[in-house]
């Protein structure tokens, strides 16, 4: 019996094997390979160590500084500016009494979350088309001349913001709807007895009850500040606007896989990884301290 149980323990490792093998190939070996950020990578023979050479080139390159600027601006728009929108959405939806309308609004606005950015880019390119796109048709009703938003440096970041909102507004409101549903009705009942109005109830009951959820969402999003959404930018950028939307991840892709500057690109990835790590750990700690819930 004992031997049997012992054997069972080791066969558990067998069950873990496929997952470990996957992590090895797609995570651990590539992570250990990032040492080449400190080398001049050669396909054949030994890659010589060059210290911080690639980082020095990286940090002194104007292209990289612009890329950092773009990343921070786009992330700011998508994390900070976007932040209140799903909360407002959830608060408004919570006031809709008809369950059929609620279901319709929910199932419609959650849908874009499940579309690929390739599809969304296709939809938006058509919608923003200067010749026949829906938005320009709409603006035409107000006598505003058509604009090509996709190739307009002044507009493209707002296109990113708007399409991100289009995709995520509904889906990101789910967590707030859940929090709203868990507020005890007795709080509102006693407020009613005290003669509180709708806005007083909102200010003194609803918002404080939502606060922990808001803090968690905000802090955890901050952990991914340097991401800025590769798939979105990759599918919505074009030569006319690349200078204002090129982010770290698209830059890493271009110099790495297109220009084949392997070590240089890895140095940029490592930089992003280290800052990202610090942000994620800080977010995890911060969220744990304030709300008791972290990333793991």
């Amino acid at each position, binding site marked *: 019996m004992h031997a*049997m149980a012992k054997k069972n*323990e080791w066969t*558990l490792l067998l*069950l*873990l094997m*496929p*997952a470990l093998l*996957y*992590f090895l*190939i*797609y*995570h651990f070996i*590539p*992570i250990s*390979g990032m040492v080449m950020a400190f080398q001049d990578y050669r396909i054949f023979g030994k890659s010589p160590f060059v210290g911080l050479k690639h980082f020095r080139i990286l940090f002194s390159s104007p292209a990289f500084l612009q890329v950092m600027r773009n990343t921070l601006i786009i992330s700011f728009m998508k994390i900070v500016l976007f932040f209140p929108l799903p909360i407002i*959405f959830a608060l*408004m939806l919570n*006031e*809709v009494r008809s369950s059929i*309308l609620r279901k319709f609004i*929910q199932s419609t*606005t959650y*849908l*874009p979350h*499940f579309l*690929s*950015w*390739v599809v969304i880019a*296709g*939809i938006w*390119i*058509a*919608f923003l088309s200067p010749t026949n*796109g*829906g*938005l320009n*048709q*709409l603006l035409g009703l107000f006598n505003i001349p058509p604009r090509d938003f996709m190739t307009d440096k002044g507009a493209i970041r707002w296109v990113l913001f708007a399409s991100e909102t*289009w995709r995520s*507004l*509904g889906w990101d409101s*789910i967590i707030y709807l*859940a929090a709203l*549903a*868990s507020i005890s009705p007795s709080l509102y*009942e006693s407020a*009613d*007895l005290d003669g509180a109005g*709708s806005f007083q109830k909102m200010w003194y009951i609803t918002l404080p009850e939502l606060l922990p959820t808001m803090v968690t969402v905000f802090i955890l999003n901050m952990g991914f500040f340097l991401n800025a959404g590769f*798939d979105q930018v990759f599918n919505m950028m074009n030569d006319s606007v690349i200078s204002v939307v090129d982010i770290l991840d698209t830059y*890493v892709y271009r110099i*790495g*896989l297109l220009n084949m500057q*392997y070590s240089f*690109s*890895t140095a940029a*990835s*490592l930089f992003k*990884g280290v800052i*990202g790590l610090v942000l994620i750990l800080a977010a995890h700690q911060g969220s744990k301290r304030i709300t008791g819930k972290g990333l793991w």
Partner: protein
Amino acid sequence: MVSKVKAPAAELFWRGLFTILLLFVCVLVLVPMLNLLALSLSDPARVSEVRGLTVFPKGFSLVNYRVLAANPLFVRSFLNSVFITVVGTALNLLVTSMAAFALTRPKLPFRRFFMVLIIIVMILEPALVTEYLVIKRVGLMNSLWAVILYKTVNVYYLIILMRYFEEIPPSLIDAAQVDGARNMTILTKVIMPLAKPALATLGLFYGVFHWNEYFRASIYLTDPMKYPLQLILRQFVVLDDTASLIGSGTLFSYDEAARLSYDALQASTIIVAILPVLIVYPLILKYYARGVMEGGVKE
């Protein structure tokens, strides 16, 4: 205790306004998609009548879809996507379940060490270049497996599944163990049937992920006959590379070809890429959104 009083007029006004605003958001979500659907289904002779805000087709024709169905590259890419999605999702569920089961057994040797590994996977992302070089070295270049295996285990999903498995009463597992059942049998016969809702949810998410994947395919696949649909879509619609699909000349085997519009053909490919997501969407709503809402209420 508190009798239902009639809502005051101000409250009704705000509720009405909120409903109208929310319905306007729905219109903004739906119109761009319905517009492409209308464009794709319109009679080619009347396609120019379809403007940016048109949501009903002008006339009716399936010619765009017939052109796509006759294009070998397009059909192939659709089948590739189906293959990647089906095989990939099955593998995801199996490997994630096996790992979640092993990691939730207190007797697993080196359990803490493995948990640390998982947290590392969660917070450290390898460089794109080094991942690419490893895939090249292990010989997965230009293989569908390089795409299928990517994200075999999503660590967030793994942790969700572990939480779920932990809820299963240990007595059930112990009973099976006394019967001498092997771990794999316990997993497939006891645990997985009990975790059906969780597995269904994760399966849908993994499935949508595979269906929507295009980037790994774009860097690991070199043969266009291996491309998934999303990659063809990207070249044809996003990069507006009309030759990527039509170069084969099949387009011109149609009488209506001379009148066909690229815009309408592009719209049709987008619709085909959305359709499978739409088909499983009710299931997603059923399993996930409801689960989250109910989970929220319970807490």
